[in-house]
């Protein structure tokens, strides 16, 4: 009895002492180490872009391994060729087999190599599109239909080894062409062709394709897959054959860009660059590899960052305020803040009376003191926003968008709102009274009577639960309070996300709600969120906003393939939306990030949506040690 106890105790004590005494394993200098919070689920591009299109999969694989014909040059997000040698040729109408198509010729760089040192040719490019079209992008699901849009793309033809022709069914807008098809992933034909062939023979080709687990797949991106220890880490290594290594991208003041590759001699420039050079970015990768540690919670990630086990915390939501405060005092750690491309907003069900009255919505918008909540209540965690295009998206943002009620005091706001409501025919049982001098509400409004003479029934304003999003929760509670001050019987109802989501998209049975969107750089969301063809169940216009004038303008915007014209139209759309208020845009939060500045150097840290949006700049970061 005693003996084995002694043995056990000895063993345990030995282990404990050893565990404390023996140091951990030192990091190798060449690895760029990041933390992620969820397991990547697949390294198969098709599922990672299809049904498993999680941000984590994108961080560790999709954004690292693959290249495309064109891309957006960071940090200014300017449309530039990547694997393509130059901009695509103008779209031309062409008759093929009795049908009229639009076509465009794209030339491909000759210096691009796959990681197995074979050249990336027109065969690969054509395959990348045609194979997916054959599979049916809708069946692949996820982002595939927006990348290889079967509504637009008919076929990609190889003209010669380094030239392809895109055959399009219809004239595409910017969203479908420059920001869609042309930025599709390029695949290695010799690797994937047999996989597709095998999948095709299976009973369920899509399932078969998804089930494929790539190994030794040749890639053309900066990194390639090295190791995946499920639940612990993913390791990528630098692609030795990466063609763009050493390539210098120069940004000029006038918005033009030049790309130069000193190794292969490739050169490209947009327009005639003049003026000051804003920034020069040299492409890497400079690290031997990247390591993604999978951590269970934020605190662990922050402790690891301070402890030096991690160089950057990858999280699409950024870091919380509390961490920022504490990290800014840590040695060797730098925190950065960036604007986010998105917004949180409030919406009414415009199918219902009196929510369809514009003045009613305007009155609500005026009543909301975004600045007060953001600055006072939320201490600058959030910043107020008025337009559906965030100011950070500087190319598309219209600085003249009206900002209802901005800068007014509490009572001035009430005064304005009451005026608007009266204008629309609302009356009160007890009209709110204010004292402008003292900025005080002397009597709260009660019993709002609608223009049709009926007393307005109280309605639910669905907001997020405090656990899900304390910011929207706080905002929502305050909004309901202000509405009640003028007698609008709005009840804030904390509701869980799934229920809100169901109410909006499955049943459209709701009065008002507080939601949020995150956006892409190209502001085509204005079309999707407000076009009347999206008002059906499951559509993206659940509030039921319907305005033929807007629809027309939005359609024109979508069809426009000229950047400048599109921009003008976008400005007009923004103004219209700020007046009609199908969404009452409220606020958004800056994205806070932190990195080990004693180990890393980024070419830039100011970029819309933060470094995470671009995979933490794995290909341009420099390691200092």
């Amino acid at each position, binding site marked *: 009895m005693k003996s084995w106890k002694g043995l056990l105790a000895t063993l345990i004590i030995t282990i404990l002492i050893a565990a404390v005494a023996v140091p951990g394993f030192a990091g190798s200098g060449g690895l760029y180490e990041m933390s992620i919070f969820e397991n990547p689920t697949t390294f198969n591009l098709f599922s990672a872009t299809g049904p498993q299109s999680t941000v984590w999969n994108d961080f560790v694989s999709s954004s690292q391994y693959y290249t495309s014909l064109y891309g957006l040059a960071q940090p200014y997000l300017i449309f530039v060729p990547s694997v393509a040698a130059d901009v695509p040729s103008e779209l031309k109408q062409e008759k093929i087999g009795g049908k009229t198509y639009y076509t465009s010729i794209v030339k491909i760089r000759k210096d691009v190599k796959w990681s197995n040192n074979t050249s990336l040719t027109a065969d690969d490019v054509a395959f990348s599109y045609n194979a997916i079209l054959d599979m049916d992008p809708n069946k692949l699901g996820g982002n595939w239909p927006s990348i290889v849009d079967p509504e637009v793309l008919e076929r990609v033809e190889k003209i010669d080894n380094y030239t392809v022709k895109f055959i399009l069914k219809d004239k595409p807008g910017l969203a479908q062409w420059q920001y869609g098809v042309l930025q599709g992933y390029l695949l290695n034909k010799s690797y994937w062709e047999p996989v597709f062939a095998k999948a095709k023979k299976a009973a369920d080709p899509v399932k078969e394709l998804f089930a494929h687990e790539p190994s030794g797949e040749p890639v053309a991106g900066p990194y390639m897959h090295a190791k995946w220890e499920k639940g612990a880490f993913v390791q990528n290594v630098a692609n030795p054959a990466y063609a763009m290594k050493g390539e210098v991208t120069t940004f000029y003041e006038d918005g033009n860009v030049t790309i130069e590759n000193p190794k292969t001699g490739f050169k490209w420039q947009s327009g005639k660059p003049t003026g000051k050079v804003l920034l020069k970015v040299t492409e890497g990768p400079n690290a031997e590899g990247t390591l993604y540690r999978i951590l269970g919670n*934020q*605190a662990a990630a*922050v*402790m690891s960052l301070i402890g030096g086990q991690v160089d950057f915390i990858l999280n699409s939501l950024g*870091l*919380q*305020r*509390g*961490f*920022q*405060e*504490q990290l800014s005092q840590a040695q060797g750690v730098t925190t950065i803040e960036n604007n986010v491309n998105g917004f949180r907003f409030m919406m009414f069900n415009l199918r219902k009376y009196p929510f369809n009255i514009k003045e009613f919505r305007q009155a609500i918008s005026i009543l909301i003191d975004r600045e007060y909540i953001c600055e*006072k*209540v*939320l*201490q600058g*965690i959030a910043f107020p926003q008025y337009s559906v295009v965030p100011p950070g998206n500087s190319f598309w943002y219209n600085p003249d968008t009206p900002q209802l009620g901005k800068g007014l005091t509490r009572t001035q706001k009430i005064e304005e709102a009451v005026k608007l409501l009266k204008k629309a025919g609302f009356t009160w049982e007890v009209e709110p009274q204010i004292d402008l001098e003292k900025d005080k509400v002397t009597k709260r409004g009660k019993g709002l009577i609608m223009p049709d003479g009926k007393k307005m029934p109280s309605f639910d304003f669905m907001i997020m*639960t*405090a*656990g*899900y999003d*304390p910011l929207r929760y*706080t905002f929502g*509670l*305050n909004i309901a*309070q202000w509405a009640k001050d003028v007698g609008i019987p709005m009840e804030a109802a*904390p*509701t*869980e*996300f*799934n*229920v809100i989501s169901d109410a909006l998209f499955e049943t459209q049975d709701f009065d008002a709600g507080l939601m949020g969107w995150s956006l892409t750089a190209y502001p085509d969301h204005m079309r999707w969120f407000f076009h009347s063809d999206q008002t059906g169940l499951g559509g993206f216009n659940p509030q039921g906003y319907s305005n033929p004038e807007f629809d027309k303008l939005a359609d024109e915007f979508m069809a426009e393939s000229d950047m400048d014209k599109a921009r003008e139209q976008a400005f007009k759309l923004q103004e219209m939306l700020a007046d009609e208020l199908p969404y009452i845009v409220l606020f958004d939060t800056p994205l806070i990030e932190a990195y080990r500045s004693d180990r890393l150097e980024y070419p830039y840290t100011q970029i819309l949506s933060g470094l995470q949006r671009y995979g933490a700049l794995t290909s341009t970061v420099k390691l200092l040690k």
Partner: protein
Amino acid sequence: MNELVPTHETGPASLAEPIWKIRWKLTRRSLRQNWEIFKESRIGMLGIILIIAFGIFGAMWPIMINTVWDPMVYDPVVGFDPMMMHPSPPSGTHLLGTDPIGRDILAQLMHSTGREFLLGVLSALITVVIGTAVGTAAAYYGGLIDTFFMRIADIILLFPFIPLLVVVGAMVKLSFLPFAIIMGVLGGFGGITIILKAQALSVSVRPYIDAARVAGGSNFHIIVSHIIPNVLPLSFLYMMFSVTSAILSEATLSFFGVLNIDMSWGMMIHTADVAGYLFDFARYWWLWAPAGLAITLFCAAFYMVGRGLDEVVNPRLRKR
């Protein structure tokens, strides 16, 4: 004083007093006796003292918010103090500091106390009522009823409690009342039924039950007036443990952000966590320590009372 004493001395058979009065007296006497035993348990007394302290603390909430505290500033949910940066450390105006969105921690703590009592006691009460009813019914009637409820209990016992609630909570954010009810019901049909049934079974074979049956007492009457009173002490004991588990579950679920509750101790910690302050424990101690300690002490208090009661209910644990 004199009026209270019956003037005529008669035997119990004449029933000068209504039966309920006699029962009440007996109950009171047994309560007093049990209290004497309970008092012996220092752990149980510690628990009682803690619960009373929490009770006073919680009762101060309505007083404070209606007198001393300005609701604009001290409202636990929408309050905000514009005078300082948040989270602010403890100060004269905010004795326990403020949370990251400027709400007073002490106010939150106080406000939540009452809610935690409600949650704990409500769910425990549901558990015990169901457990006692089902347990005694199963023991008394046996047969199909017994089998049915025991199988249900077996199945409920298979559910991993917290994970299941987290799973459900992740999909439907439970609010306060449904959560209390679910906790109560799951608890009631689960393990406690088995324990209470065993107790009821040991009672229902005692001779006086047979006597009551022979005397023509209805089943309902026998259950209510003979079996249940004997099961109740044990039910009461398990009620204490149910309170503990309800509060702890609530806190854990709140921490994971899967409950729809505006304020509770768990939410306080959750708020600190999602705002990124649950990391440097020494610096922002007021964001986690008061709520964390409250959860622990509150649960421990009920648990200790349960332990104390155990010595009342289970004579084998008593000191001689």
